[in-house]
């Protein structure tokens, strides 16, 4: 990928950013490539030194806060005309439920990733409680002498399983945190890419 292709690709994927920010970044990377070329490399090598288009786009998504992206998205592109306002009012029964549905869906999506974590810890707690119960039962049956071995065995087994399962919980939590980070980055990249901007 040479300089021209890199800058075109960059421009194509940054449409969701404010206009002056896009221009600023394009001229920044253009100058950066020129300077690397001046140090005796080819344009292709310069693009690779920057990390390639994919890494550059990921870096930009990482460095741009979600708040400013949403703000840019919400910025009115043109003044609302009377007709538009009328349509908005008349269409209220239609778009309001749609908005609520979209909001609930987003909320459910967020909760869904946490469900696995909650379930894992619930199972963990149930193992611990069962183990303690078996131990308590052991002491209760101590006088009568019934099922003592089974109860001790169960208590130890459940304690062991609960300790092992703690590692599973930890793994699921870490996986969930990583997943959330990826989802956030994906949303940001989508917003930065923009797309259907009617300007």
């Amino acid at each position, binding site marked *: 990928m040479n300089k021209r292709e890199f800058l075109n690709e960059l421009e194509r994927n940054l449409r969701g950013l404010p206009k002056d920010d896009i221009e600023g*970044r394009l001229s920044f990377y253009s*100058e*950066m490539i020129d300077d*690397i070329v001046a140090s005796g490399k080819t344009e292709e090598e310069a693009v690779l030194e920057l*990390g390639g288009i994919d890494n550059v786009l990921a870096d930009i998504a990482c*460095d741009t806060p979600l708040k400013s992206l949403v703000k840019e998205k919400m910025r009115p592109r043109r003044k609302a005309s009377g007709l538009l306002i009328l349509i908005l009012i008349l269409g209220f029964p239609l778009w309001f439920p749609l908005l609520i549905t979209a909001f609930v869906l987003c909320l459910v999506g967020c909760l869904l990733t946490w469900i696995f974590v909650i379930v894992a810890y619930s199972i963990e707690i149930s193992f611990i409680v069962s183990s303690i119960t078996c131990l308590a039962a052991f002491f209760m049956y101590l006088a009568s002498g019934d099922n003592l071995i089974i109860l001790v065995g169960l208590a130890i087994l459940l304690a062991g399983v609960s300790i092992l399962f703690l590692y599973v919980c930890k793994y699921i939590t870490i996986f969930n945190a990583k997943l959330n980070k990826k989802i956030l980055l994906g949303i940001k990249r989508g917003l930065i890419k923009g797309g259907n901007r009617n300007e």
Partner: protein
Amino acid sequence: MDAQLKRGVLDVCVLAALKNEDSYGYKIIKDVRPVLSLSESTLYTILKRLEDAKMISVWTKEFEGRLRKYYHITSKGIRRLEEFKEEWKELNSIYLYIVRGSRYE
């Protein structure tokens, strides 16, 4: 290095790269990288932030038939560097405390 800690010192590192002479993007990257890794995108964000905070100013100069942006540290930027040195003294005493642990007898 911890991301939070790094974010705090990166701005100062970029200012320090401009302390002695005005510099441009690629040169700042080359100067800072041996001390602290930073991506070009991060540098762009920092330069923008410093410019908005009026700690640096930007001017363009022609170089080999193209325009190159130079960054100049302002008096406010120099003040920030001095402030950081003071903050560092505080941090250093915290560091010494962490290494040494409690000394109360």
